[in-house]
């Protein structure tokens, strides 16, 4: 008998049905992936297995665990199953731990509650658990607080908490999405090891096919609340049958291949837009007494996209801030179109600021919710005096919206009326409003669904070429960079350790860290 059986599971909110007729089976000690875009109902299906749906949601159908029906089970009995037999780890390890309780308290809690252990015994178990998830110095970790750990370490702690009472089933909902590639690789490996050693059944939910490919053989594809297709990850990727699986797999493949055509563009003869040499920068109170950036040399030409890749904390965003003149450079030279970048408040600073614009990661947070789209776009135009009359301004705003392939008549609406992809288009239009020479895009698509990502990346590429701008693309996503950038620079601990033509860098990485990044990056399924 299967450990977990979902039969015609339906989840309804008062106004709509979000999960429809989902059926799946999971055996003892096996792994099943669930892949789908946001809103496909994959997370809710996972939460339903723990009886943790939001209060307004209602589940119907059947969720059978170890021969027991979970839907309609009394709350007290369900609570005993939770943690003890079924455990779950969540996406954002940064917020998933109670900030004011020590790690020890949070780990010991389920042990005392479920297994009835005494505190001293529970403490011994907790240390053993932390050792098992390979957290450094597990004894002293017990008395420390979540904010004292890195993202990867917190995810390890969450795993330890989930596995402490030795459950048979672990549901992992995007457990590595918020992590760097190298850390992601470590966590995935840890999950696989724990799964093998403990004979866990693992339900692995993710939007990322490559990640699922690392951990599961079998997967189901969810779309709009339904399971549309199931099978081995390889056959799902290479021979998808259902139309929506086909669309999804095509966009996944497109991310790394479709735009490689423009690599043939010869930008070597184009004039230099940005030239950085010997740059170092840091914050007033340096962490570990170190400067964040040192010895940065970088050139960007017209119509060129240069990728900057590195782990979190490597200095990517700091470099972006220096280029935007938000923080000053300590040493080195910065030139924009042959003109030295000046400090804020100097005479020509305002004009220079118009020439460098930024596109941020999260379009849900980067647009002011109280300004309508036209106001958001008009503000920089007005500030930099780029339109003389109100009529001219309105024309400029409409042009910008057309440039990002949006209906020019949406100006009176507010950000909340738009989807993530549309918002990112608006954010791009905002960046273009001052007619910049250099665009800095900091993880421009990582908050978006795969199918939307492709469209936004294609739009960015088109804009850079049509307007002959330069773009610095900051990302940790090597797959995306490969399809997008002519050149790639790898930043590691504040230094550019390697810089080369993207194809060359991916084919024959020279620096040790580049090799690590490439090895850690999860790969798509091998051909059948």
């Amino acid at each position, binding site marked *: 008998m299967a450990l977990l059986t979902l039969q015609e599971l339906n989840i309804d909110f008062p106004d709509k049905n979000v999960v429809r007729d989902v059926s799946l089976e999971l055996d003892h000690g096996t792994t099943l992936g669930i892949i789908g875009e946001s809103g496909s109902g994959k997370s809710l299906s996972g939460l339903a297995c*723990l009886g943790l749906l939001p209060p307004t949601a209602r589940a119907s159908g059947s969720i059978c665990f170890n021969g027991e029906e979970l839907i309609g089970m009394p709350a007290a009995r369900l609570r005993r199953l939770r*943690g003890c037999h079924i455990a779950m780890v969540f996406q954002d390890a940064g917020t998933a731990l109670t900030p*004011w309780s020590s790690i020890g308290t949070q780990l010991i809690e389920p042990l005392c509650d*479920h297994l009835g252990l005494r505190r001293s015994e529970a403490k011994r178990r907790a240390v053993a658990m932390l050792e098992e998830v390979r957290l450094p110095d597990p004894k002293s970790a017990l008395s420390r607080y979540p904010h004292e750990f890195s993202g990867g370490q917190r995810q390890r702690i969450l795993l330890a908490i989930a596995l402490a009472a030795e459950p048979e089933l672990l549901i992992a909902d995007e457990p590595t999405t918020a992590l760097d590639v190298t850390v992601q690789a470590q966590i995935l490996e840890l999950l696989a090891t724990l799964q093998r050693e403990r004979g866990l059944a693992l339900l692995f939910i993710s939007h990322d096919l490559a990640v699922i490919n690392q951990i599961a053989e079998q997967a189901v594809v969810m779309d709009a609340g339904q399971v549309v297709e199931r099978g081995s990850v390889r056959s799902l990727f290479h021979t998808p049958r259902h139309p929506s699986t086909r669309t999804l797999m095509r966009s996944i493949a497109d991310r790394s291949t479709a735009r490689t055509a423009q690599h043939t563009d010869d930008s070597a003869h184009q004039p230099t837009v940005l030239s950085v040499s010997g740059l170092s920068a840091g914050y007033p109170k340096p962490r570990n007494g170190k400067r964040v950036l040192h010895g940065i040399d970088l050139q960007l030409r017209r119509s060129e996209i240069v990728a900057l890749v590195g782990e979190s904390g490597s200095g990517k965003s700091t470099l972006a801030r220096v280029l935007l003149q938000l923080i000053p450079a300590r040493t080195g030279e910065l030139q924009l179109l042959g003109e030295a970048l000046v400090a804020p408040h100097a005479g020509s600073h305002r004009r220079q600021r118009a020439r460098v614009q930024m596109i941020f990661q999260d379009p849900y947070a980067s647009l002011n919710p109280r300004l309508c789209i036209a106001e958001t776009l008009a503000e920089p135009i007005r500030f930099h005096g780029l339109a003389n009359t109100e009529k001219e301004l309105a024309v400029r705003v409409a042009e910008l919206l057309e440039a990002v392939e949006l209906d020019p008549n949406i100006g009176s609406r507010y950000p909340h009326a738009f989807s993530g992809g549309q918002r990112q288009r608006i954010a791009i239009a905002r960046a273009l409003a001052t007619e910049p020479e250099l665009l800095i895009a900091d993880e421009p698509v990582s908050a978006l669904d795969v199918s939307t990502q492709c469209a936004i990346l294609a739009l960015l590429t088109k804009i850079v070429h049509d307007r002959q701008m330069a773009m610095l693309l900051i990302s940790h996503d090597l797959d995306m960079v490969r399809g997008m950038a002519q050149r790639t620079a790898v930043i590691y601990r504040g230094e550019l350790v390697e810089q080369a033509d993207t194809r060359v860098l991916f084919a024959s990485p020279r620096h040790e860290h580049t090799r690590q990044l490439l090895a850690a990056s999860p790969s798509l399924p091998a051909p059948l």
Partner: protein
Amino acid sequence: MIAFISWRVLQAIPVLLAVVTATFFLVHAAPGGPFDSERQLSPQVEQQLKAHYHLDQPLSRQYVAYLGALLQGDLGPSFRYPGRRINDILLQGLPKTIELASYALLFALLCGIGAGLIAARRPNSAQDRITMAAAMIGICMPSFLLGPLLVLVFGIYLDWLPVTGWGQLPGDKILPTITLGAAYTAYIARLCRAGLLEVMNADFIRTARAKGISEQAVLRRHALRGALLPVAAFLGPAIAGLLSGSFIVETVFQIPGIGRFYIQGAFNRDYTLVMGMTIFFATLLVLLNLLADILSAWLDPRIRMEYRQ
């Protein structure tokens, strides 16, 4: 932590100096003086009085002399209560005011946190709406209206409780406590409700529930501190407000605290009395805000970390 506290104490010095300076020149700039009254004094007597209190000297010299005395902890003599020092007036009334404020605070904390938790347990239910409506009325109701109303109902119609005094009759402390504490109860209830509702939506509450611990334990071990953090931050200003805002309640219930001296001092242009009170309350406010910050740091380890940097 020690570095943080000393830094904050140092920061308080310019704040207090600004308060002293502003108050000094403002009270002196107000029309009239301490010896103006219905009964006209002879110019000679007034001259002597002014000379006695050094009011005939230039303002700048008075200011320097006042600061000098202040540094030695002397708030000067009262102009309207001959022979009494401001320090003595403060010390005499303070215990009653502090007692009243403490009871009011205790009442506000117990009822406020209780009401906030009850309301937040079932958001948008009847228990939530009724509690929050009561809280809104509590915030809106001024104490000069609430006090007499309570007196009317409980003191006169029902004849359950004494209508005035402090510590003379059994139960005479109840009505002043409620009158003073009501607005703060309501405010704390709203803060506590909002804090708990926010925390209950946090990811770590979902993690706690996924562990399968009881809902009681989720609330007590994981959510409660989040609900108390905004309350803790409000405590500093609340205590200062309770102490300095007690004069209306003291007047309504005829309690001999320091509040009424403040009002009388201002009406009588009793310069030193107004200054002394203001400086005393300003110091209190600064200290209490510091205490509230320390309390927040104790509740939330993340704030502790910020101090260290």
